[in-house]
């Protein structure tokens, strides 16, 4: 017990120490978080009228971000499968970073849902036994369950790996393997359930397509890993952690396949809607070409289409995939492309035109943008804290001392160019 307490104290020391760059980064995030909190306070005082959401478009930017971030959380599983199912060593060493990204993405998801609801004071109504969780009828109830399970699962796995590493021990396979294997269907479940949440609404033909859940999965396997690739490069540049090229290129290759499936499924949907040309075409028409002079989303969706297609080719061709300039361009294109397509591009056309044919053009207000920025900053803040502890553990700069109780902390220079890091002795 004492050992765990000392470990915990050690992590507090770690997060409070770092380079100037680390402090600057965390401080800027705190500023954005404060701005987001102010926007939330403003929204709580005045009601959701400060957003651009109205009865016609009853969900907007918050739920769009939520939907996208459920996808980002999939980054973990794309690393877990090669690492633990196929025991591929280059990725196994860094899979924990993916799990931590999943934790941070889940935190953001839960925050986005919280700021979207009209009565956050009544959140306890969702807690089974104390309140009433309408399970299994409501898909939103399912989502509450799977998102929390996934958050908890990834948190446990990540903390367990780190703690074992800190103790210089191997994880106990009897305990660890079932957990890690369970995290794979759990990741699939958060996407499936979130897709079904939209999919199950017969009132909204744009969402009421069976292809929605597979599309969710395919695009999820693009956005999260694209973020990871950029992050891996940052991490190996600014810390002592080593991430091999082959791990990065393998992730990029997996993205190329996922993006192909994503584009194919989208094409299937576009064909069906346009060729059959029923009244259910209206939302898609609104999204891609505008409807009756309303075309807010058109430039965005075409940006997404061009970005996704371009990135697909960059990742498909080995030469551009293994060139860091084109690789990084591809990652940025995918992240933005999927953010548009899986965010506003998915949520808004479900609601516009509305069920009685009215077109209300939704465009987020400053409050919505500021509040969302605050939540993104919170997610990055959480992720940085997690990395601040995990990375020294992985590089052997934070470990259990020889007395078996006190931690040894070598790393005090978190976030500094690797080639400028002071030559400190490693533990071995």
């Amino acid at each position, binding site marked *: 017990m004492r050992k765990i307490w000392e470990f915990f104290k050690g992590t507090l020391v770690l997060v409070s120490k770092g380079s100037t760059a680390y402090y600057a980064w965390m401080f800027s995030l705190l500023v954005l978080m404060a701005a987001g909190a102010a926007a939330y306070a403003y929204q709580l005082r005045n009601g959701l009228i400060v957003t651009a959401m109205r009865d016609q478009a009853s969900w907007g930017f918050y739920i769009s971000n939520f939907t996208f971030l459920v996808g980002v959380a999939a980054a973990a599983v794309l690393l877990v499968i090669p690492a633990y199912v196929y025991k591929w060593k280059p990725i196994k060493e860094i899979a924990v970073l993916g799990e931590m990204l999943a934790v941070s993405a889940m935190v953001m998801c839960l925050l986005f849902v919280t700021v979207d609801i009209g009565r*956050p004071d009544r959140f306890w109504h969702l807690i089974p036994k104390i309140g*009433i969780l309408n399970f299994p009828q409501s898909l939103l109830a399912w989502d509450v369950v799977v998102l929390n399970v996934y958050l908890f699962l990834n948190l446990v796995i990540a903390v367990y790996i780190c703690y074992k590493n800190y103790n210089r021990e191997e994880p106990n396979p009897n305990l660890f393997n079932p957990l890690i294997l369970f995290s794979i269907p759990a990741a699939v479940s958060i996407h499936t359930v979130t897709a079904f949440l939209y999919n199950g609404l017969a009132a909204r033909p744009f969402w009421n397509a069976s292809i929605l859940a597979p599309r969710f999965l395919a695009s999820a396997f693009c956005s999260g890993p694209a973020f990871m690739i950029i992050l891996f490069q940052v991490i190996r540049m600014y810390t002592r952690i080593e991430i091999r090229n082959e791990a990065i290129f393998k992730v990029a290759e997996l993205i190329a396949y996922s993006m192909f499936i994503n584009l194919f499924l989208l094409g299937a949907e576009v064909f069906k809607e346009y060729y059959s040309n029923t009244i259910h075409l209206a939302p898609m028409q609104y999204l891609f070409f505008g409807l009756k002079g309303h075309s807010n989303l058109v430039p965005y969706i075409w940006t997404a289409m061009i970005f996704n297609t371009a990135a697909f080719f960059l990742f498909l061709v080995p030469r551009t995939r293994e060139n860091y300039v084109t690789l990084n361009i591809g990652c940025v294109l995918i992240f933005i492309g999927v953010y548009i397509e899986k965010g506003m591009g998915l949520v808004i056309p479900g609601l516009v035109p509305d069920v009685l044919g009215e077109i209300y053009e939704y*465009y987020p207000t400053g409050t919505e943008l500021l509040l969302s920025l605050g939540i993104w900053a919170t997610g990055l803040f959480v992720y940085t804290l997690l990395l601040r502890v995990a990375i020294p553990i992985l590089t052997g700069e934070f470990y259990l001392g020889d007395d078996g109780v006190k931690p040894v902390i070598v790393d005090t220079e978190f976030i500094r160019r690797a080639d400028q890091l002071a030559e400190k002795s490693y533990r071995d």
Partner: protein
Amino acid sequence: MPNGEDRADRPFRMSRRKMMKGVAAVLGAMALPGKDAPASVWESFFQKNFRELSGGDKARVIARLEKEYGDKYGKPVKVGTAPPLEGVLYGYGLDLSRCIGCRRCVYGCVAENNQSRNPQIHWIRVLQLNKERGVDLEEAEEYYNPSKVPEKGHFYMPVQCQQCESPPCVKVCPVQATWKERDGITVVDYNWCIGCRYCMAACPYGARHFNWKKPGLPAAEMNPATHYLGNRPRPVGVVEKCTFCIQRVRNVPGRYPACVEVCPVGARKFGNLLDPDSEIRYVIENKRVFILKEDLNTRPKFYYFYAT
């Protein structure tokens, strides 16, 4: 909704002072009751779902609400809890050949049911349709505004809650804050709704409305004859909808819903579907009725027909 106008009054004009006030309010305005909040606030915070309230609890809740509304609107307010009448299933008929699109039903409903005046919430949306196109919602115009109705070449279709036998909105609610009563009316517990708006996404008829802002209801216009599940004043951040004027129709002797009463051309019919002699049964038997979006299998109890 005319877009330019709507965007202009989006209130994102945050002055520094307001911002600081906002910051100060972060914790307070977490909307949780403060330390020295009156006992009634805590009572309201911990109030159970209406269907789980025991007789005694229910009486206390009603007393609390009647006092709260009475103080706020400066007149005695009754909050009824009349249960469904035995052997009654409400049905509604709307004669499209008579409706002239005057929207008296819209405003009669607002006056009866204590909807917010600012911003305006309407439980009835009247659509102007082209005679040539028939009931084609993609061509519908809700914001028609001529000096005189009906306009040539058009007919009118009011849409409100269709009181579905198989309501998709009820199924999706994550906390069972909305349900269908035995007499077929779908109701909302405004004290239990968390404001997630999933029901609004699920409703195929646009019948559910959200209190985006604290409802603006002038005391003078407040109707004090209310029902807990119907027209009592609503808080901010919850969903509301048409209840066939539950506060009227469950009384013995009952009254017609306000929209039926106010319609100047008698286009609106209302009655008990289980009573073979009711007017609504007569309409179903002798006219040819249709329901909206029958392909969704929601089985509305709101029947449209053309009498002439």
